[in-house]
C-alpha cells in the first residue's frame, strides 16, 4: 500500500482539474466531486496508516521523479511515509474529508460553488504535498501552495472589501515569514549540501550549535508566519472573513499547524541548537497567554475561535520549545479534531442565523438560548469545549496537560506558569462562548427566529464524527502504559531534546498518575499535583464563566466598568494592529515620503539651481558668444545636425533597414572568422 | 536600376483594395437562377451582405399587348406568362373575363378545367422539385421528376395538341371536349403518381445532407410573409393557411375535398414539404374530378363578337406559385381598356432579399429554388 502513496495527492489534483476546468459544467456536482476525491485520498491514507500502525512502521521513501538537477543540487519529487507524516496524513485527509462533506451543505447555493471546491481540493493537494514531501524544497512548494489557497479562500467572497483585504493581509504577513523560511532553506543547503530530510538529518549532528540555532530561528520565522505566532499572528483573526469551513480546515485544523509540523520534522536540527528551542518555547507561551486573554472579551463567535486557535498553536510551540515534540504533535492532532469541530459548530450556528442582519450573524451578544433549537450542534460543541478546556477524559486533557507537564518537568517553570494561566483563560472563554450562544434568553433578531433550525444531515454528521473524535481522540492514543501509545509510535521520527530523559519520565509519571487516579492508587506527588491543578484550572475556568454569564449576568458589565482600561485593551486586541500600523507601516510610508521630499527638494533643487546658474552663465556667455565665437557655435551646431541627420536613419522604423544592418553584422562576423 | 516596371509606378499602395467584399453577378446567365434573373450579391467571404434583384430581361409588354387585342386573342399570351403551368394562366384569364360577362359555365367544363389546372400544378411542382434538388446537388431527383413531368406533358398533348403552351381553355368553357384516352391516361397517372412522390421523398426528405441544407435556411415568419404579400407555398410554408382555392373558390373546387398543407418554421425545408404535400393533394383532386366528371356540354353559348359590358373586374386564382390574378377594365369595346396582371413570382421575388441576407452563397441558390420563380410571368 505504501507504494501507492503517490495516489494520495493525485486525487485532489484530479478534483482540481475537474472542478477548475469544467466548473461551469459540473456546477452543483462540484462538491460531490471534490468530496469524492478527498474521500479516495482518505481511503489510501487509511490503508497506509493501517500498514504503518499495525505493521513494522519505519520510514519509506516513495520516489516519483527527479525534479531539479542543477549542479550539486538534486531535488526529487518523492514522498516520505513515516510515523510523523502518517499522523499528519490522518489529520489532514480525515479532517479534510469531513470538512469537504460539511461544505456541501454549508456552501450550497453560493455562486462560486465550483470555485470553492476547486480551491479546497487545491488546498488538500498542497497540504498533502507539504506533509508528504521528503525534502525541504517540495515541502516549500506545499507550504507556498497552502499559503496561496489560504489567500484565495480568505478572499473567497472577494466582492466584500474586508474579505479581500484580509486575504491580502494574510498573504503579505505570510510572505514575511516565508522570506525567513527561504533563508533557512538556503542556509541548510549551504551547510549540509542537500535539501532532502534524510541527508540533512544525517549531517545534522555535525552542525555547530550556532549554525543549528540560526537555521532553527530562520525556519521558525517561517513557522511564525504560517502558524500565527507573535508577532506575525495578526492575519489569522482577520482570516475569519473566509467561509467557515475554510476557517475550520485551514485556519484551525491543518494549515496553521504546518509550522508545528515543520519544527517537529526538523527536530534533529533543532536539538543541535538549543537556543532556538528556548526562543520557540517562550514565543509559544507568550502567544498562548496573550491571545487567550484577547479571546476573553471578544464578541464575534469566530474571532473567539481564532484567538483560541492562536493560543493553542502557542501551546504546540511551547511543546516544541521544551522538547516535547511528540506531545506537540499529539496536541496538534487533538486540536484538529476539537477546534475543527468548534468551527464547524460555529458555522452551523451562523448558518442557522443567516436570516439575521449581517452584523449580528456572528455576534454572540445577539444569540443565546439556541440549545433547544439546535441540539446536535449544541452537544457536539459542548464536547469540543470540554476537550478544549482540558476536562478529562476529553481529548484536550491528554494532550494539553501533557505539554504543561513536559514544560514543568523539563524545568521551564516560567513557560509552565504562563501555560497554566492560559489554560485557565481557555476554559473560561470557551464556556463563555457556549453559555452566551446556547444558554440564557434568546437575543436573536425577531424575524430571524423562526428560521433557526438544526442544520441538514450533511452538516451535522461531520459534527458528530468530529465530536466522537474529540471524545476518544485523546484517550485512545494518549492512555498509558508508558507515556501513551502515540509517543512510542512517533519516537522514530523525532529527535531527542537535551534533558529528554527527565521530560519523558515526567510525562510518563503524569500519565501513570492519571491512570492511578482513575484506579484510586497513588504515584508521584508532583504528577498528582499537576493533574489536580490542571483539572482544577479547567473546572475553575468553567465555573467562572458559568457564574459570570449564567448566574450573575450583570457581572461582565460590572467588571467592564471597574477595569475599563483593561477591557478596552483586550477588546482592541492590545492595539496590536494599530501598533503595527504606527510602528511598521507608518514609518515605511514616512520613509517613502521623506525620500520623495528629498528628491523634490534636494535633488530637484540641485537641478533647478544648476539650471538657474546655467541660465545666468549662458546669458553672460551669450553676449560673449554673439560677439566673438558665433561662427564656431554655428559650426558645432552644423556638425551635430549633420550627425543627427546621419543617425536618424538608424531608427527608420523600417524592418528591412534593421535586417540590412543584421546582414552587415553577419558579414562582419564572417569577416572576423576569415581574417582572424 | 532596380526600379523596373516604373511606367505605371505608384508610390503609395493605398489603392490596394482590401479583402473586404466581393460583388458577384449571379445571372442573368447562371444555371440556378431559373431563367434570366440577375442577382447582385455583395459577399463577405461567402456570407451574403447584400442582395439585389435585377429583373426585366424577359419583359415583353404583355399588359400593353392585352389592350390592343380581343379578349379571346389574349389567351395564348397568358400561356407565355407562367409557361411552366400554362393552363393555370389560361384559367385565370378566362375566369376573370367570364366574371366580367357574368356567364354561367357548364359543370363539365368546370371539372375539366380543374383537372387540367391541377395537372399543371403537378407539372410546375415537378419542375420546381427537379431544379431545386439539382441546385442543391441531388441530380437523380432531377431526372426522375422529368420522367413524370413528361407523362403530364403527354397528357396535355392528348387533350389540347400542345405540350407546353397549350392554350387550353376558351371563354365560356372549352374549345372541345377532351378525348376518352385523355381521361384513361389521367386515371393511370393519378394511380401511379403517389408512389413516385414516395420515391422522391426517399431520396430527400430524411436525407441528412438535404436536411442540413434546407432546415433553418431562408426563414421567414408568418407576419413578415404577410407584410411582403407573399403568396402560395412560401406563405403556407410559414404557417398561414391561405389558399384561394379554399378562400375564394372558383371552377369545381367548391365540390372537391382536399387539404391545404402548411408548414411551421417557414424555412426552405417546410416549403419543400408543403409542395410535396400539394402534389399529393393535387392527385387526390384529379382522382375526384375523374370520378365525379358530369356529362353535358363543355361550353356555354358564346356570341361571335365578344363585347363585354363596360366596367372593371379583378379575379385571381391559386397558381402553383401563388396568387395569380387579372384586373381588367373594359370600356365596352372589343378590346380591354386596361389589363393588369398580378404575378406571384414577381411579388414573391421581393422577399428574396429578406430571406437571403446573412446566409451563404449556397443558401441563395437554395432560397431562389424554394421561392420557385418563373421569369416569364415575373417580367411579363
Amino acid at each position, binding site marked *: 500500500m505504501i507504494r501507492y502513496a503517490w495516489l494520495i495527492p493525485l486525487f485532489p489534483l484530479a478534483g482540481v482539474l475537474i472542478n477548475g476546468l469544467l466548473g461551469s459544467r459540473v456546477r452543483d456536482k462540484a462538491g460531490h466531486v471534490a468530496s469524492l476525491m478527498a474521500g479516495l485520498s482518505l481511503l489510501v491514507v487509511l490503508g497506509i496508516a493501517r500498514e504503518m500502525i499495525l505493521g513494522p512502521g519505519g520510514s519509506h521513501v516513495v520516489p516519483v521523479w527527479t525534479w531539479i538537477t542543477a549542479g550539486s543540487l538534486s531535488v526529487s519529487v518523492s514522498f516520505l511515509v513515516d510515523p510523523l507524516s502518517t499522523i499528519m496524513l490522518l489529520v489532514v485527509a480525515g479532517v479534510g474529508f469531513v470538512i469537504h462533506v460539511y461544505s456541501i451543505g454549508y456552501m450550497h447555493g453560493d455562486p462560486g460553488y465550483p470555485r470553492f471546491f476547486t480551491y479546497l481540493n487545491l488546498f488538500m493537494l498542497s497540504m498533502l504535498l507539504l506533509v508528504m514531501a521528503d525534502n525541504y524544497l517540495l515541502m516549500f512548494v506545499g507550504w507556498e501552495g497552502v499559503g496561496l489557497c489560504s489567500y484565495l479562500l480568505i478572499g473567497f467572497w472577494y466582492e466584500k472589501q474586508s474579505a479581500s483585504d484580509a486575504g491580502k493581509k494574510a498573504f503579505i504577513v505570510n510572505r514575511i515569514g516565508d522570506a525567513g523560511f527561504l533563508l533557512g532553506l538556503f542556509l541548510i543547503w549551504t551547510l549540509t549540501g542537500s535539501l532532502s530530510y534524510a541527508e540533512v538529518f544525517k549531517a545534522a549532528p555535525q552542525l555547530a550549535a550556532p549554525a543549528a540555532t540560526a537555521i532553527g530561528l530562520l525556519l521558525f520565522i517561517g513557522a511564525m508566519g504560517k502558524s500565527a505566532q507573535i508577532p506575525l499572528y495578526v492575519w489569522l483573526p482577520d482570516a475569519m472573513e473566509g467561509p467557515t469551513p475554510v476557517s475550520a480546515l485551514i485556519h484551525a485544523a491543518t494549515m496553521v499547524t504546518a509550522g508545528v509540523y515543520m519544527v517537529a520534522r526538523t527536530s534533529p536540527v533543532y536539538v543541535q541548537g538549543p537556543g532556538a528551542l528556548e526562543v520557540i518555547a517562550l514565543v509559544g507561551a507568550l502567544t498562548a497567554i496573550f491571545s487567550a486573554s484577547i479571546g476573553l472579551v471578544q464578541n464575534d463567535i469566530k474571532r473567539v475561535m481564532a484567538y483560541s486557535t492562536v493560543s493553542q498553536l502557542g501551546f504546540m510551540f511551547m511543546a516544541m520549545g521544551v522538547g516535547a515534540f511528540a506531545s506537540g504533535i499529539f496536541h496538534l492532532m487533538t486540536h484538529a479534531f476539537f477546534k475543527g469541530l468548534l468551527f464547524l459548530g460555529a458555522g452551523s450556528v451562523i448558518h442557522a442565523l443567516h436570516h439575521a442582519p449581517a452584523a449580528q450573524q456572528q455576534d454572540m451578544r445577539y444569540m443565546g438560548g439556541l440549545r433547544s433549537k439546535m441540539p446536535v450542534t449544541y452537544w457536539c460543541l459542548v464536547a469540543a469545549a470540554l476537550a478544549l478546556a482540558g476536562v478529562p477524559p476529553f481529548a484536550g486533557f491528554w494532550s494539553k496537560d501533557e505539554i504543561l507537564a513536559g514544560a514543568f518537568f523539563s524545568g521551564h517553570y516560567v513557560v509552565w506558569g504562563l501555560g497554566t494561566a492560559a489554560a485557565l483563560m481557555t476554559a473560561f472563554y470557551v464556556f463563555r462562548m457556549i453559555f452566551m450562544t446556547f444558554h440564557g434568553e434568546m437575543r436573536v433578531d425577531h424575524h430571524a427566529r423562526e428560521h433557526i433550525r438544526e442544520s441538514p444531515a450533511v452538516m451535522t454528521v461531520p459534527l458528530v464524527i468530529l465530536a466522537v473524535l474529540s471524545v476518544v481522540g485523546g484517550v485512545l492514543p494518549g492512555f498509558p502504559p508508558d507515556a501513551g501509545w502515540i509517543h512510542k509510535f512517533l519516537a522514530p521520527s523525532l529527535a531527542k531534546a537535551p534533558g529528554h530523559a527527565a521530560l519523558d519520565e515526567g510525562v510518563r509519571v503524569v500519565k501513570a498518575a492519571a491512570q492511578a487516579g482513575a484506579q484510586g492508587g497513588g504515584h508521584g506527588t508532583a504528577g498528582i499535583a499537576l493533574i489536580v491543578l490542571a483539572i482544577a484550572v479547567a473546572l475553575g475556568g468553567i465555573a467562572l464563566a458559568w457564574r459570570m454569564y449564567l448566574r450573575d449576568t450583570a457581572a461582565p458589565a460590572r467588571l467592564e466598568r471597574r477595569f475599563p482600561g483593561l477591557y478596552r485593551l483586550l477588546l482592541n486586541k492590545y492595539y496590536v494592529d494599530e501598533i503595527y500600523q504606527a510602528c511598521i507601516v507608518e514609518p515605511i510610508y514616512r520613509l517613502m515620503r521623506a525620500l520623495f521630499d528629498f528628491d523634490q527638494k534636494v535633488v530637484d533643487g540641485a537641478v533647478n539651481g544648476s539650471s538657474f546658474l546655467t541660465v545666468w552663465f549662458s546669458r553672460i556667455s551669450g553676449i560673449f558668444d554673439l560677439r566673438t565665437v558665433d561662427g564656431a557655435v554655428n559650426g558645432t551646431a552644423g556638425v551635430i545636425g549633420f550627425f543627427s541627420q546621419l543617425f536618424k536613419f538608424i*531608427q*527608420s*522604423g*523600417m*524592418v*528591412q533597414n*534593421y*535586417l*540590412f544592418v543584421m*546582414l552587415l553584422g553577419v558579414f562582419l562576423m564572417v569577416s572576423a572568422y576569415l581574417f582572424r | 536600376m*532596380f526600379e523596373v516596371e516604373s511606367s505605371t509606378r505608384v508610390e*503609395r*499602395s*493605398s*489603392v*490596394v*483594395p*482590401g*479583402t*473586404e467584399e466581393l460583388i458577384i453577378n449571379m445571372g442573368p446567365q447562371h444555371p440556378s437562377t431559373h431563367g434570366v434573373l440577375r442577382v447582385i450579391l455583395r459577399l463577405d467571404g461567402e456570407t451574403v451582405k447584400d442582395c439585389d434583384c435585377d429583373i426585366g430581361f424577359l419583359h415583353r409588354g404583355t399588359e400593353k399587348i392585352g389592350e390592343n387585342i380581343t379578349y379571346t386573342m389574349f389567351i395564348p399570351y397568358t400561356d407565355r406568362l407562367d409557361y411552366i403551368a400554362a393552363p393555370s394562366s389560361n384559367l385565370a384569364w378566362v375566369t376573370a373575363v367570364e366574371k366580367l360577362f357574368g356567364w354561367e359555365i357548364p359543370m363539365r367544363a368546370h371539372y375539366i378545367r380543374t383537372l387540367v389546372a391541377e395537372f399543371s400544378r403537378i407539372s410546375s411542382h415537378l419542375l420546381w422539385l427537379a431544379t431545386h434538388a439539382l441546385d442543391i446537388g441531388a441530380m437523380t431527383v432531377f431526372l426522375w421528376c422529368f420522367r413524370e413531368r413528361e407523362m403530364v406533358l403527354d397528357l396535355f398533348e392528348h387533350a389540347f395538341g400542345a405540350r407546353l403552351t397549350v392554350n387550353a381553355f376558351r371563354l365560356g368553357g372549352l374549345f372541345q371536349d377532351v378525348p376518352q384516352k385523355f381521361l384513361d391516361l389521367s386515371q393511370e397517372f393519378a394511380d401511379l403518381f403517389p408512389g413516385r412522390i414516395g420515391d422522391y421523398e426517399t431520396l430527400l426528405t430524411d436525407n441528412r445532407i438535404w436536411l442540413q441544407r434546407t432546415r433553418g435556411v431562408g426563414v421567414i415568419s408568418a407576419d413578415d410573409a404577410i407584410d411582403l404579400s407573399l403568396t402560395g407555398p412560401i406563405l403556407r410554408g410559414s404557417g398561414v393557411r391561405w389558399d384561394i382555392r379554399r378562400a375564394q373558390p372558383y371552377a369545381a373546387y367548391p365540390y372537391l375535398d382536399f387539404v391545404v398543407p402548411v408548414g411551421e418554421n417557414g424555412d426552405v425545408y417546410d416549403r419543400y414539404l408543403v409542395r410535396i404535400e400539394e402534389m399529393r393533394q393535387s392527385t387526390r383532386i384529379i382522382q375526384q374530378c375523374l370520378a365525379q366528371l358530369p356529362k353535358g356540354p363543355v361550353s356555354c353559348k358564346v356570341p361571335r363578337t365578344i363585347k363585354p359590358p363596360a366596367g372593371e373586374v379583378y379575379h385571381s386564382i391559386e397558381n402553383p406559385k401563388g396568387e395569380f390574378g387579372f384586373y381588367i377594365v373594359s370600356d365596352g369595346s372589343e378590346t380591354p381598356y386596361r389589363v393588369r396582371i398580378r404575378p406571384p413570382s414577381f411579388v414573391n421575388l421581393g422577399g428574396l432579399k429578406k430571406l437571403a441576407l446573412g446566409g451563404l452563397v449556397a443558401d441563395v441558390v437554395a432560397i431562389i429554388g424554394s421561392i420557385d420563380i418563373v421569369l416569364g410571368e415575373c417580367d411579363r
Partner: protein
Amino acid sequence: MVPLTHYLALGAILFLIGAAGVLMRRNAIMILLSIELMLNSVNITFVGFARQWADLTGQVFAIFVIAVAACEAAVGLAILISLNRDRQMMNVDEINLLKW
C-alpha cells in the same frame, strides 16, 4: 557521393538569394516567401551534414525547421491579412511604426 561542400555551397547560395529578397523587395508577401527560401537553405545544409556523418540529427532538425516555417507562415500571413484589411498596405517600407 556528393561532397559536403556542394550542399553547403548550395545552401549558402539559396540563403543569400533569400536574404537579398528579404532586403530588396517591398512587397510583404515576397519577403515572407524569401524567408521561406532562407529556411529551406538551412534545411539543405542540415541534410547535407546528416548525409556526411550518417547522423539523423540533421534530418530531425530539418523537420523542426519545417515546423517553425509553418508557424512563421501562419502568423506572418495573419499579420499581413489584418494589415491589408485595416490599412490597405502591402509594402513593408510604408510601415514604420517601429519608429515611434
